[in-house]
């Protein structure tokens, strides 16, 4: 088991637009500044990581996580600055390296790149990529990116980008390597790929029982063994709402988390989650909603089950109010995290 004191706890945001004290939806610009404020609070309260996702949609303000992270970098001291995720398929690995190495410099080594294939398709037409190259784009770009991480001259060629012939990329980091992880959804192939490159793996668990992922962790470990790479304890990303009482948290999650999941699902032709399904998710699935003790118990169980080394709470889904978000961060940092460590230490 991972030492409970060493488990990394994070907060994840896509820059959802919150409502202000008058109940008005914030603008995207305000929502971005709000995330910076929240990251400052999280830093002060000792949360380990803030992870920002990349989206290109009206309901999310963050399309350039590294720029927002750079803003956070100059106003915080300890918190790690991660993406969640950087959609490598529709980005340029060289630029990703350059941007995050810059962030790493600004933050005294606190940058973390979390790469993934992304679960939205908007970046493809936006940046002129063909969705039918989905697999090829990621496969080639992760290969190039992993070479860039060595911070030596790179020689690479492929179909999706211009070749590099002994090219060096700058700035160099002080540690000699950018902290990099891979986020995966439910695809076994992605799990094997993370192991092949020897990256730590973060499981995006946004529905169903975490138990389902036990074999995935095993697959990651076995694949690492086969490839001779290091298997790290896995990370978990899930949605949640923490409030003073269970009832309040569950209602907020129903109103906001469920609504934002439903909005995305609708575009794919999915029917929205019923109240019964939602309650199942809260009880034993992947929505962590409740008072601090409830959430701590559920988190501890999940972390134990998957022997995880990291947990990231997607805390701001939907149009929660600014106050609810700030209060949630406070409860997470001051009550939930210490309590989870305590429960895990008890064994």
């Amino acid at each position: 088991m991972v030492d409970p004191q060493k488990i990394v706890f994070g907060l994840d945001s896509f820059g959802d637009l919150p409502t202000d004290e008058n109940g008005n939806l914030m603008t995207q610009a305000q929502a971005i500044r709000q995330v910076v404020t929240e990251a400052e609070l999280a830093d002060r309260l000792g949360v380990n990581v803030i992870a920002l996702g990349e989206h290109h949609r009206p309901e999310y303000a963050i399309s350039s996580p590294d720029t927002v992270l750079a803003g956070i970098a100059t106003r915080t001291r300890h918190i790690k600055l991660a993406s969640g995720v950087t959609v490598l398929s529709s980005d340029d690995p060289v630029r990703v390296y350059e941007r995050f190495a810059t962030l790493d410099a600004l933050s005294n080594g606190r940058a973390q790149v979390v790469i993934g294939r992304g679960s939205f398709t908007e970046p493809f037409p936006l940046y002129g990529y063909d969705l039918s190259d989905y697999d090829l784009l990621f496969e080639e770009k992760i290969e190039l990116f992993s070479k860039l991480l060595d911070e030596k001259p790179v020689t690479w060629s492929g179909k999706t980008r211009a070749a590099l012939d002994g090219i060096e990329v700058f700035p160099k980091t002080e540690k000699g390597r950018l902290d990099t992880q891979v986020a995966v959804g439910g695809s076994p192939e992605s799990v094997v790929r993370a192991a092949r490159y020897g990256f730590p793996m973060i499981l995006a668990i946004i529905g169903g029982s975490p138990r389902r992922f036990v074999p995935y962790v095993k697959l990651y470990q076995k694949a690492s063994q086969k490839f001779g790479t290091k298997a790290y304890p896995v990370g978990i990303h899930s949605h949640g709402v923490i409030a003073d009482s269970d009832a309040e948290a569950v209602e907020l999650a129903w109103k906001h988390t469920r609504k934002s999941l439903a909005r995305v699902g609708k575009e794919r032709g999915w029917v929205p989650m019923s109240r019964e399904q939602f309650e199942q998710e809260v009880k034993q699935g992947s929505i962590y909603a409740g008072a601090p003790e409830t959430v701590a118990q559920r988190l501890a169980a999940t972390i134990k089950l998957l022997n995880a080394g990291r947990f990231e709470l997607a805390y701001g889904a939907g149009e929660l109010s600014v106050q609810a978000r700030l209060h949630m961060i406070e409860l997470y940092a001051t009550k939930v995290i210490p309590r989870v460590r305590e429960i895990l230490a008890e064994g």
Partner: protein
Amino acid sequence: MVETLGILGAGKLGTVLGQLAIAAGYRVLIAGSGSSAKIELTIETLVPGAVPTTASDVYQQANIIILAIPLGKYQNLSPSALAGKLVIDAMNYWWEVDGPRPDLTDPRHSSSELVAHFLKKSHVIKAFNHMGYHDLFDEARPQGQAKRKAIAIVGDEHEYVKKTAEIVDRFGFEPFYAGPLAEGIRMEPGSAVFGANVEKNELKKLLARFEETKRGQMVLQARGINFK
């Protein structure tokens, strides 16, 4: 005699259906698009007991074959190798994977009809398409247990519908016959059933609500009075 069940597709759905099939006591063969070596580790870990193999081996050894590959690739299947077999179509059009494909979303026919038309000599039945793979994993319950969740089945041949219902049942779900293959359109993305993880009575109601959905209206319009 232990029956052999083949699954084409070793992704999210294919591996979960493989787990259910193993638990139900079938001999299970699974293939992805490439060599068996490519999926060996995955299958050995996620679906212990199943045999990782190639599509052509699945064609040869199994008389019941579940399609769990991207719908956009259905034309890669071999109609001759699948002739005479029960083919259970669990596929959906998914624009993120399949890209823009007006042929696959044509409101005049269900996607399973396209598959059946392509696999002329197979017995194509649609099932397992409307429930998310994590729900399939979480909700499977042994036969006889109360409150089992229902899976809709459509197909034109009684004998093969019955066979599919038996598989659904053994996998841990309540089979519900929802009509001929053409009615499969009621279970596709955009319908009230898509993503449904409900019991039989509720499923029945949701199926009947198709005409109220946007997709249902579109289908009605495209089909004129031919629609039931």
